């Protein structure tokens, strides 16, 4: 779990800069993250701020991929950290903090998507009718940031065609690089179900991309 080690190292670095946990506290602190959690539980907001700093990029990244735009992603990240703080007492310190955090993130994204009326998958035809289709990025032009933005928008739309569960599974597995077992843990599911969801999601994304490419070729010929 490469990313987790990186996050943990980041925590370690930040944590070392700060006053260390009092010696009286239990030795069960298996990571600096847990130490920060324990301090935040007592109302130490600077410790909670450190927790946010250590995880904000990943949380907002997941939210961006789940929701497809920056404003919603920021709202979701904000709401996620509020929920985390409120439920900090319920966090079992033997658990993996990141997994717990991502589970909350996914739930917040689901809630936000439903609240904004985007709980239903977007169909390719609906997208087409809405004129939301951009031209595919030509390979020699990929350096341009505008192209990157366009590419991102297309992939975001491809993700939007998935069901909520498929989207969460594919974002965590393929885009966040978690293992199938980790994804299952976060989504409260089984590895078998997650495999089925990611298989279906990859097939749908390929179909979306095929149709998008086909349509772009037709547009160019007109």
């Amino acid at each position, binding site marked *: 779990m490469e990313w987790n080690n990186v996050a943990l190292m980041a925590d370690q670095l930040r944590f070392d800069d700060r006053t260390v946990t009092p010696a009286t506290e239990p030795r069960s602190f298996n990571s600096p993250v847990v130490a920060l959690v324990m301090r935040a539980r007592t*109302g130490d*907001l600077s410790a*909670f*701020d450190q927790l*946010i*700093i250590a995880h*904000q*990029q990943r949380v*907002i*990244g997941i939210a*961006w*991929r789940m929701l497809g735009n*920056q404003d919603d992603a*920021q709202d979701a*990240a*904000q*709401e996620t*950290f*509020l*929920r985390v*703080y*409120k*439920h900090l*007492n319920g966090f079992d310190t033997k658990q993996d903090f990141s997994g717990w955090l991502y589970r*909350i993130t996914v*739930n*917040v994204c689901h*809630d*936000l998507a439903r*609240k904004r009326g985007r709980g239903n998958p977007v169909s390719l035809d609906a997208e087409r009718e809405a004129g939301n289709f951009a031209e595919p990025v030509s390979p020699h032009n990929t350096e341009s940031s505008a192209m*990157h*933005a366009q*590419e*991102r928008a297309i*992939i*975001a739309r*491809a993700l939007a065609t998935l069901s909520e569960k498929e989207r969460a599974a*594919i974002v965590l*597995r*393929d*885009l966040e690089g978690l293992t*199938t077992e980790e994804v299952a843990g976060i989504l409260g599911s089984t590895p078998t179900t997650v*495999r089925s969801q*990611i*298989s*279906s999601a*990859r*097939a749908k*994304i*390929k179909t979306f*991309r*095929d149709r998008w490419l086909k349509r772009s070729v037709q547009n160019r010929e007109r």
Partner: protein
Amino acid sequence: MKCEHIEQLIPLYVGGDLEPPEADDLRHHLTGCARCRQLNEEFQTSQNWLTGFAVPEFDEASLANMRASVLSEIERQEKRGSWIHWLLPKWNPRLVLAVSTAALVAVTALSVTVYRNRIAPPKPGGDLVTKTGIPVSTDDGQSGTLAENRLSGNGTSTATGVKRRFPGSKLSEPALPEEALNNGGLSFPLEPPVTVPEQTESETTMSVEPEDKEPKEMLRIELQTADPNIRIIWLAPKAAPTESNTK
């Protein structure tokens, strides 16, 4: 392996989600099947396209802004946080609701008892008013207001407690407990009149009548609320008692 089976495995294969023996079988099939090889290449391209989906960089300023919002919201909520929550952080919201409802009932019963004790033994000659010089309604109003303050205090702290137990107040908070409490609060008027749950009579919507049982200086005003069980009775001294009033 048959092509149909391979087609189902390819989406998992491109993401490295097959067990090694399965992956070996699939690779073996691909060497001899152009159609499946083509499909595999397409899936591989699509997978690379997807995994190349980079999230835009979030600038430090907007991240700092997000953190500041979170921390200030936490501080704001903690200022509002009730003593109940801090004393009993593990309380179940339903339990809090049940206890506060019980407290509400107890305080109401107490108010009624106090009210009846004051009214029941009518002192002869309008002692109550003339001696103290304080109208009964004000007196009761005070006790009513006190009770109300305690009630609303309870309601507020419980509501806050409920809020704190449920995350994401904006998004997923169950509306029931707070609404229920608010409604409970609304059942009890804030102003001087004493609220008495009535089991008997259900006639007038409003009546103003000299009360025979009361000292003659007292005026009794009854207001029937929409809830048939709740009647508001207002006792007030009659204005400027004269000979004609007292017969």
